[in-house]
């Protein structure tokens, strides 16, 4: 388990580019290499601010306690951050030119400060359509109690 350190994240997506799987090398069903991360109140607040989420339920404990949620929660879309926070610099989702084509995500339990989230990610499928190389990725995020917090699937067009 690692407390997410946003300030030391590798922002150069060209680094390790040669170690990443290309479309030809992606094996449907194979697990992606992931590490669990712990989301602090600060990380949640910073995510919320960055994506323009200004509902105080995401950063004001006093307010959040007065709601049915009983305390601060993360914006549901925080899996966007987890997708990169839980994976390595060698993960193919970082490959420059990876184009997002669409997504579907389901939410089961709100993520809260202090939660340690584990990602299980695979390529579910790959195909060629309209001359473009597609990969479908599928992800399940669980908390420290083993409960599924959210699941999602997306399609990316792979650099040719």
């Amino acid at each position, binding site marked *: 388990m690692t407390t997410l350190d946003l300030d030391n994240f590798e922002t150069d997506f060209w680094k390790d580019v040669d170690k990443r799987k290309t479309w030809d090398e992606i094996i449907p069903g194979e697990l992606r290499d992931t590490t669990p991360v712990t989301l602090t109140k600060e990380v949640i607040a910073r995510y919320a*601010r960055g994506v323009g989420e200004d509902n105080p339920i995401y950063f004001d404990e006093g307010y959040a306690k007065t709601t049915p949620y009983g305390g601060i929660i993360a914006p549901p879309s925080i899996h966007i951050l987890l997708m990169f926070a839980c994976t390595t610099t060698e993960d193919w989702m970082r490959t420059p030119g*990876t184009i997002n084509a669409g997504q579907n995500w389901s939410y089961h339990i709100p993520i809260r400060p202090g939660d340690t989230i584990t990602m299980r990610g695979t390529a579910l499928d790959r195909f060629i359509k309209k001359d*473009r190389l597609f990969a479908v990725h599928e992800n399940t995020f669980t908390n420290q109690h083993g409960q599924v917090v959210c699941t999602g699937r997306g399609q990316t*067009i792979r650099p040719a």
Partner: protein
Amino acid sequence: MTAQQQFSETNIGDVITGRNFTVMRETIQDFADASLDYNPLHFDDKYMEKTFGKTSFDGVIMHGMQNFALISRTLTDWLIPRGGFHRRLETRWLKPVQLGHSITPTATISGKRQTDKGFWLLFDIAVTNQDGDMVATGNSMAEFLDIIPGDAK
């Protein structure tokens, strides 16, 4: 109010209009710092001059997931005060969104459904740009619940 009462106050056809959003270098940087997605598609003007297989772009593009987050915000800002729990969002990106473009998400209540255990609201999602072009489409589900799932400690 019970979840059932809150659910009964929603109407098919109601339209929720999200806040307008204009893409700038700063908004792209903020989103990258929040999401940790530093793909050069969003930063590198030189890189964007090339073609990507069958696809080419006119300059850097907004993150697709920025669009996803804006739709998500539109839904939760409306749902949370009304007792609704955001359950699902499905999106398809139709057109790239570029620097200087302004986009607005809308969610239209398209259906209501009671199941054995829940009260469900269905939404049609559309995101349009400054020219009225649809840049994203999708659908969403929310549930009205008396108790929020999980352990509220």
